[in-house]
């Protein structure tokens, strides 16, 4: 028996995984252990699988993912801090056959942009929202976010977040789920292979919902920020499982499809 050569193995028919062409070759600026990289990849893979590159418009926020347009090869609009849902609203209404999504962090979406996200969702804008919640302001250097947990130290809550001084962490996803204009609300994470698969399914569903014109799809990704949290990537995942998931439990909060889509459609009409 002759020896197996590497060339015999590296054949197209043997491939089980490849980098989607929708992701560019630009070197990502994200820190090691950050959840943005995987989340970007999932969005890009979904766009490729649905074959909607030519019809997708992304809206990037202010925050770590402000430069998302360098990594996902689609047309992008870069929004002012918190205003991505307003841009997406107009874009979708003016080009209703396009797929429009916002990609926002917790400071952008739940603090400065709280009004825009609530009203876009309440109008049932037919868009997809990717909400990356790492409970901290990453880009500006680790300040307290609206989603920062009680007791969690940050640059602007150096002794840990205290309710009396800083207010409570905001479960904005639970708020969004109450709104009749919203079709799908789910909370996922990307810290294990199983979680990544689930998150991808959720993102895909969020985009598919746009074709079904049933209202807003909102996907929260509970994320890590090793640099902001000042612990290693491995420790960050552990800390997230222990603390973040307790306050921000994973799973679907609302699914119009399961809850009876026909009734739902009648309601929004």
């Amino acid at each position, binding site marked *: 028996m002759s020896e197996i050569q590497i060339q015999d193995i590296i054949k197209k028919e043997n491939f089980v995984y490849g980098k989607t062409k929708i992701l560019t070759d630009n070197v990502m600026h994200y820190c090691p252990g950050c959840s943005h990289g995987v989340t970007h990849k999932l969005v890009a893979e979904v766009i490729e699988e649905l074959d909607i590159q030519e019809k997708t418009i992304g809206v990037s926020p202010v925050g770590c993912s402000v430069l998302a*347009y360098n990594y996902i090869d689609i047309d992008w609009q870069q929004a002012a801090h918190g205003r991505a849902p*307003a841009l997406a*609203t107009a874009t979708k209404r003016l080009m209703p056959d396009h797929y429009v999504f916002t990609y926002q962090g917790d400071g952008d979406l739940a603090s400065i942009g709280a009004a825009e996200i609530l009203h876009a969702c309440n109008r049932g804008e037919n868009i997809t929202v990717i909400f990356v919640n790492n409970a901290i302001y990453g880009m500006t250097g680790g300040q307290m976010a609206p989603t920062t947990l009680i007791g969690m130290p940050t640059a602007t809550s150096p002794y840990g977040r205290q309710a009396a001084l800083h207010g409570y962490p905001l479960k904005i996803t639970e708020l969004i789920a109450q709104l009749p204009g919203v079709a799908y609300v789910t909370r996922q994470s990307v810290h294990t292979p199983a979680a990544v698969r689930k998150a991808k399914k959720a993102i895909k569903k969020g985009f598919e919902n746009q074709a079904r014109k049933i209202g807003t799809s909102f996907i929260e990704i509970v994320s890590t920020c090793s640099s902001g949290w000042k612990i290693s990537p491995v420790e960050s995942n552990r800390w997230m499982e222990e603390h973040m998931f307790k306050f921000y439990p994973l799973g679907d909060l609302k699914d119009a499809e399961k809850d009876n889509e026909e009734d739902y459609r009648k309601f929004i009409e």
Partner: protein
Amino acid sequence: MGELKLMKGNEAIAEAAIHCGCDGYFGYPITPQSEIMETLMVEKPWETTGMVVLQAESEVASINMLYGGAACGKKVMTSSSSPGISLMLEGISYLAGAELPCLLVNVVRGGPGLGTIQPSQADYYQTTKGGGHGDYQLIALAPASVQEMYDFVDLGFELAFKYRNPAIILSDGVIGQMMEKVIVSDVKPRWTDAEIQKISGSWATTGKTKDRARHIATSLDLEAEKQEIHNHKLQAKYREIENKEVRFEEFQTKDAEYLLVAYGSSARICQKAVEICRSKGIKAGLLRPITVWPYPTKRVAELAHQVKGMLSVEMSAGQMVTDVRLAVSGKVPVSHFGRYGGVIPSPGEVVVALEKFINGGN
């Protein structure tokens, strides 16, 4: 020639938007301009031309909806009044930075703060000297009649797309609320996708096709050197606009010894004041800037060689007068007369102010 209609200045804005093929209006109610969105909602243009009309949750949201719509190469507009425009300034700066064409309408009311709902011209600085952050300019048209309210919607879009820059109609509560005859133009169809590709295909975010690189509507460049290059490009564009787009009107300036300078509703009042002056033997004339940016600096400078003095008449504490002084550069005396906080001066008051100015007072 089009149909003749009687309408309010605010209604004229709404009618003109539908007639000129506007794709989207996004706004928030505020006095004295709410009739613009009210008229659009009554007219339901989404059933005829396909124009989108949306009441946003705030002025902040409206201006950012414009950013999204403008980035798609669509003809989008908003309208508001002074405090609402203040809220929009961040978004306006982003639109200018990202070079996105759109149309804004400010039906100015008295300030500062919540001020009053009566007419004012105290947003001149805000409109022509920046307002928002960074070095940017808005192409600013100042209508003095309901007809111009109507005409400047189409003209504003034309200039906005010609230069990829936001344009603004700087109106006030007088012109917004008063009724006049308007010659209505024929309905222009909205741009088709193919026309948008032709006009804005090199930058609009209409979806990345295989034959081109992705388009990004952004004002961000973290590298200072690149941001400076971008600013050079913007400044070159502003100089070109200054050279090509100055618009003004003159009334009895040929033999004028004293010049009134006024825009918008103040110009209407000054026209009557010039007539009164002439009947009294005072050789007065009027220069009315139609574009308050770019400003008719050259013409003001020329007239400084002819007249003995200039009086800037504004419904403000004296804002445009600084541009008159810069143009005149000390050649002849320049002064300001204004009523403000929502008060409208009468032609008689302007005449008295001019007589006082001629006699060496202020």
